[in-house]
């Protein structure tokens, strides 16, 4: 059963079409990554899901109910962390957490204290003295300490440091083990790769890609760097191999996962000295849908060339 089900959602602000036929399905118990560049409509979608914005067209169901009409009943079953957390400046962090928890219908006190400790948040400080990251922690603790079925997180970690990001990922995995559903909007790709079962990528108010990470990886290519004893020839003619370049005696190329085997067989004949291969990353998938000039490029066509020495690439095998 889908916890969230959006079909052909349209939302306009004046003459601006913020959402233009967006689709999104989130199944029960899954952690769903919701990706898109700034201004692509992630927050607008989430506000429609919460019944804060009224849709212009399309069908939106949350727990099989209409979020606009049944907002209050639905809100008892979900917790929301906004992208830009603002708090009452003269309340302490602890007071704000308790208040959000109570307004949502209750809060697990033990879990609250545990989370405060794990996120290293001082609850006695006034909200006006908190940094962006600390304000986000307040919203995260208040949400995670609520015992609900669905967590809607709108770029929740944009102000957190890497240490806290790790704590956040642990906690999301814990929510998943407890059977909760999570919608995680983000543009931190490592976070989405680490946490999400399924991913939807949106661009200009439309869903451009949706599926499990494995499904989506088929759409990208592995980057290979190889150093051979004799100059490797005939590579560009191999099926599924793209973008062959020779730099300082090393060959850089990209290959579709299905044709990796043929490539390796071909390379063996030239005496392989060193070989690095980087698995396809979500980043590539993401980049494909980012830049305007690449908007028209269909999936599977030549992808943007990423620098093989890019730090953000997961460690390759040597």
């Amino acid at each position, binding site marked *: 059963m889908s916890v969230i089900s959006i079909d052909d959602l349209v939302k306009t602000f004046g003459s601006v079409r913020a959402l233009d036929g967006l689709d999104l399905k989130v199944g029960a118990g899954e952690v769903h990554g919701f990706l898109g560049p700034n201004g692509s409509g992630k927050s607008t979608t989430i506000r429609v899901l919460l019944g804060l914005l009224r849709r212009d067209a399309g069908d939106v169901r949350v727990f099989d109910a209409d979020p606009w009409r049944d907002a209050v009943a639905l*809100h008892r079953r979900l917790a929301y962390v906004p992208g830009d957390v603002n708090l009452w*400046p*003269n309340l302490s962090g602890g007071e704000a957490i*308790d208040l*959000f928890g109570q307004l949502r*219908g209750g809060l697990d006190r033990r879990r609250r204290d545990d989370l405060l400790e794990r996120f290293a948040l001082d*609850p006695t400080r006034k909200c006006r003295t908190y940094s962006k990251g600390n304000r986000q922690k307040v919203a995260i603790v208040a949400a995670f300490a609520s015992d609900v079925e669905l967590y809607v997180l709108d770029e929740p970690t944009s102000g957190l440091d890497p240490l806290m990001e790790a704590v956040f990922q642990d906690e999301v995995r814990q929510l998943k083990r407890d059977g909760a559903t999570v919608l995680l909007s983000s543009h931190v790709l490592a976070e989405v790769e680490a946490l999400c079962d399924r991913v939807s990528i949106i661009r200009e108010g439309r869903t451009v890609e949706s599926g499990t990470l494995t499904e989506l990886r088929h759409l990208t290519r592995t980057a290979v760097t190889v150093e051979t004893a004799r100059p490797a020839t005939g590579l560009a003619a191999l099926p599924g191999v793209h973008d062959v370049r020779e730099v300082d005696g090393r060959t850089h190329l990209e290959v579709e996962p299905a044709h990796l085997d043929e490539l390796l067989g071909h390379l063996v004949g030239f005496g392989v000295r060193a070989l690095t291969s980087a698995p396809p990353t979500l980043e590539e998938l993401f980049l494909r849908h980012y830049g305007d000039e690449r908007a028209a490029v269909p999936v599977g066509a030549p992808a943007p060339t990423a620098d093989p020495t890019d730090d953000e690439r997961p460690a390759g095998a040597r």
Partner: protein
Amino acid sequence: MSAFTGTGRLARLVLRRDRVRLTMWVLGTPLLGYALAGSVKEFYPDEAARVGYASTSASSLVARAFNGPVVGTDLGAVVVAEAYLTLALLAALLSTFAVVRHTRQNEETGRAELLGASVVGRYALLTAALLVVVAANVAATALLAAALVGAGLPTAGSFAAAAAFGGVGVAFTGIAAVSAQLSVTSRGANALAAAAVGIAFLLRAAGDVLGEQTDDGLRVVSAWPSWLSPLGWGNQVRAFGGERWWVLALPVALLVVGVVSAYFLAERRDIGAGLVAPRRGPARAVPGLLSPAGLAWRLQRGALLGWAVGVAVLGFSMGIAGDEFNAMIEENPAAAEAISAMGGGAKLIDAYLAAMLGLFALAIGAYVVQALLRARGDETDGLLETVLATAVGRTRWLGTQVVAATLGALALVLVGGLTTGLGYGLVAGDPLGQAVELGGAALVRLPALLVVAGVVTALFGLLPRWSVALSWAALIVFLLLGQLGAVLDLPQAALNLSPYTHVPSAPAVEAAALPLVVLTAVAAALLAAGMAGFRRRDVPS
């Protein structure tokens, strides 16, 4: 790079951001001055009428407390006395808010950090804000002087009077420059500066009440407390009554002291920091906070307490002044006639007390507007979105805000009536009876405040983007209709726009039920419209 690098560019930014506000300020001041001068000329056309006005005002402690000392029988002197409170407070508050808006508010929102990281000197932001605000005061002064000359007043006096008002603005520019350094929040900085305005008003009122009437009975020589108040300096310029130009040096000196102190403080603190250290709070919320009503009470109680103290002090002193008012009208039949024409009713003291209660109701309207507009503030901050994403429904949330603001207004109205009655009762005998009677008379004003709450709620629900500007504009229109409507001789149809026009002027007039029922019905309709609009619209929008 000097500490002032980038000041010019930032000043242009301030001008660009505030082009509408500044234009309204600089053009509105002379327009108001011109309109007032014209109406005063009509009201006091000859020397005899103005002698009556001057002797009445000079002998009335209440008139001295509010309008300041009378400086003579020239037409200009009457204009200044009638316009002083409005124009001086406008200059003081507009200058304060503008300075804080472009200094501390920039730091609070992080804009200052963004600007400070570019090629901008340490003092540039502050200097740019001060330059623009001082320039606005100078421009308003020049145009006001021209307007007064245009209204047919003597040239020297016109310039002195305009400069007196400009001086008040300049003095509070200096005060706001310091308050913006002290407090971490713009709200706190505004509160500090507004408190300075309040103290300045009280000092001036005290000095003018304690002052001596001259032998001819037409002038007042203020006592020393007036000289401690930037609001008092404007009076001491004595425009149209033998101008003392050197007094204008006082606000300029205060500006210099304020600016030097502000630079000194800015030099010694970090960006975003203040001198008033933020306190810590409890790690857990008390159960009383954990509901929309508890939250509304927590967020409003500070402001409400401040208002209650202010209303009580003012009510009590106005009540005590009632006795002296009695004495005054016995000696001055001309004044008696004027007041009974204004307040209505047979007993003059009742007309006086009714006028005081009416003033409170107008002021408490400002409380209602600011309390309800927090809703809009929460919405633009993104807080409302987070609250409405919990199990709190829209009707419940907005209803809570309306009830909280209304209960606050009820409490303030009662405090105003009770303290006025207590004060008057103490000097006239029967404090308890008077307190009960005036408390009841004050309650009659509540339906007008309900309409104010209804207007703000309707705007918030139906025209959210315009709600802040239009709510305050509506209140200012009500205020102008109430205070200046009679002076400006506006038609009754215009006066009827204000809910305050329709409240029976108790205790001078018997409280009739019909207008109260109609006002309450109008308020209910406005509230329902606002609520329906809020339920249907996007949040945030």
